[in-house]
């Protein structure tokens, strides 16, 4: 706790969205996350990149307890993430997540996908939940699909629905876990445009992605991870133009010049 308070003494503690201190995680004997220290402030947009297996997905999945960390402290919005189910539920209400494979509920219509959590978790009346759902479906530009089922939509449309579903809970923070990796090339743009729109509205976001154009355009900070560690953490300009670490340089050369 001491080092963060001194480092950001000028910033009010209320502005901290997430703080991770000394977080470690193992899958069996495999050390996935090593000593992660990360502070995210409100309204920040962070892009995490790195080679596969570097622990970047695991890192953001620890933030809403889809994965459990074994050592260190994670605080989201001032709530400590531990085994207390109440804290976990509270955090999940405030943190939206978008997955690589969308994870829409195939047996529910698009509208039902969006209203389910507000109705059951936020105890919102159905009419109000539907109003909010239509608002966000309009925002991701597919209100006309509301009564269809996920299986009838294209991949890009499904991912936009997944974003709308997360937004319907009116979260304070959005986590994106490789949201464009499972999409056809021509559908990537529609999803990225939606995400850029969100970023422009001031949503706090943490995105695991390889879309470097997106990182350049919207990120406040780019984080490079390898072997479970945060290796480099910079603003996009200096990250892409003068990376310091050799591993970062190699990664960037492979991902940018092909």
């Amino acid at each position, binding site marked *: 706790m001491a080092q963060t308070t001194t480092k950001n003494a000028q910033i009010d503690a209320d502005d901290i969205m997430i703080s991770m201190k000394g977080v470690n995680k193992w899958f069996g004997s495999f050390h996935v996350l090593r000593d992660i220290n990360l502070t995210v402030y409100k309204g920040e947009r962070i892009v995490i990149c790195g080679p596969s297996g570097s622990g970047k997905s695991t890192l953001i999945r620890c933030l*809403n*307890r*889809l994965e459990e960390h074994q050592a260190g402290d994670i605080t989201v919005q001032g709530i400590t993430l531990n085994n207390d189910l109440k804290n976990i*539920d509270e955090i*999940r*209400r405030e*943190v*939206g*997540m978008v*997955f690589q*494979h*969308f*994870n*829409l*509920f*195939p*047996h529910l219509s698009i509208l039902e996908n969006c209203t*389910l*959590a507000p109705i*059951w*978790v936020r105890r919102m009346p159905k009419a109000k939940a539907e109003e909010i759902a239509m608002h966000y479906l309009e925002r991701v530009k597919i209100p006309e699909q509301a009564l269809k*089922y*996920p*299986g*009838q939509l294209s991949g890009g449309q499904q991912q936009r629905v997944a974003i709308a*579903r*997360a937004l319907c*809970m009116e979260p304070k923070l959005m986590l994106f876990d490789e949201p464009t990796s499972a999409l056809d090339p021509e559908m990537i743009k529609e999803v990225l445009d939606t995400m850029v729109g969100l970023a422009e509205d001031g949503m706090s976001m943490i995105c695991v992605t390889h879309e470097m154009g997106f990182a350049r355009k919207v990120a406040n900070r780019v984080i490079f991870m390898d072997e479970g560690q945060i290796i480099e953490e910079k603003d996009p300009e200096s990250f892409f133009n003068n990376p310091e670490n050799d591993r970062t340089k190699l990664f960037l050369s492979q991902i940018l010049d092909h």
Partner: protein
Amino acid sequence: MLPPPATEAGITGWLWHNIFESMADFHSPLAAMRSLFMILFSLVLVYVFGTQIYGLLDFAIFSAVFSDPDGVKREACWTVQQGGSLPDGWHAACWPFVVAKQKFALFGPFPSEELWRVYLALVAGAAGLAWVMIERLPFRRQAGFLMLTVYPLATFILLTGGNIEVAMTRVAIWFVFGLALISVGRLGNAGRLGTVVNEFAGSFAGVGWLVVAFSTVAAIAAFDFNLEPVDTGDWGGLLITLVVAVTGIVASLPLGIILALGRRSDMPVISVLCTIFIEFWRGVPLITVLFMASVMLPLFLPAGVNFDNLLRALIGVMLFSAAYMAEVVRGGLQAIDKGQYEGADAVGLSYWQKMRLIILPQALTHVIPGIVNTFIGLFKDTTLVSIVGIFDLLGAGQSAIADAAWSTPVQAITMYLYVGIIFFVFCFGMSRYSIYMENKLSKSRRH
């Protein structure tokens, strides 16, 4: 647009694709041989099935005796040689025998003057079931709720006569105790009783509602409706088959779901207990279970404690089929992608919300064929209760056969045909409804 060729559309198209296409190729010696073989094979099949079906229809309808106008009983179905009037070599169904034994086969020794109660329960059950299954009708959810709550209680009272022996004061005490638990829950929820009670307020209220519901049911069952009591030993025939099968079917699904969820639980104690339960019941034959329930169990109970033979068999069948159902449901749960669990977790649903709203609807849809398969198996397995002296449809039919007044060579086979038809109608109905459900769900949820 051109019209399709004759081989692609209409009845000719159908006939061509399904029958003649495979026997019309004579372009090479090999193809010609294949076609000839198909022709011969088809003719043999048509002949075999034709004669079999004709034989059955001839036995059941064309040559059958339908009436016994003179009331001569067995002599109505006797050939000349046997002393009757039918031609020698006659061999067909003797339906007057089934008509005469109709009441016994369907309801066993149930008192005739009280049969209106059975009819009422059956008609109400059929009407309620139809209401729940036909989709155009309004209030289906409410109808389903009534069918699962009020209907079983009403049927119990109608069939047994109600008026069970329970000390009313005890029921009243339980009722008040339940109300007290509910109020504790309410107060706890409002935060008046401190944090510890607040934490468990939901459980207090839940248990309270259960206690209130149970004592209400007990009070209603103990109420004297002025119905003649009918001992379950006087039930029989189709009535027993339906009571055992419906109770088993209705109880096995929820029990099976809970066991399946328990077996997949993260909590080792629950998982191990559920696994042991399931493997135990799957490891013993139903006959053993029924024997244990009706013969062995009384030996272990203290003297004087005795409960109904039918009830014991019912519980045995219920637990047995729940174990099978649990494995079917578990198969469905395993087919659900991990992403569905994560998607539900990420939006903040609780465990039970996640299961009820996301996982189970998909898992159960996947395993409808397996579920209905278990239902059909259970329906037919009810015939085993005759081994512990409870006379189901088959058992009642068999004891009707023993009646010498109808003794003819075709007596047994006619009764078995009748029993077989009844079983087939019920099982085929379940099978068709399951196919209808599968089609409906796959249409609305294309994925």
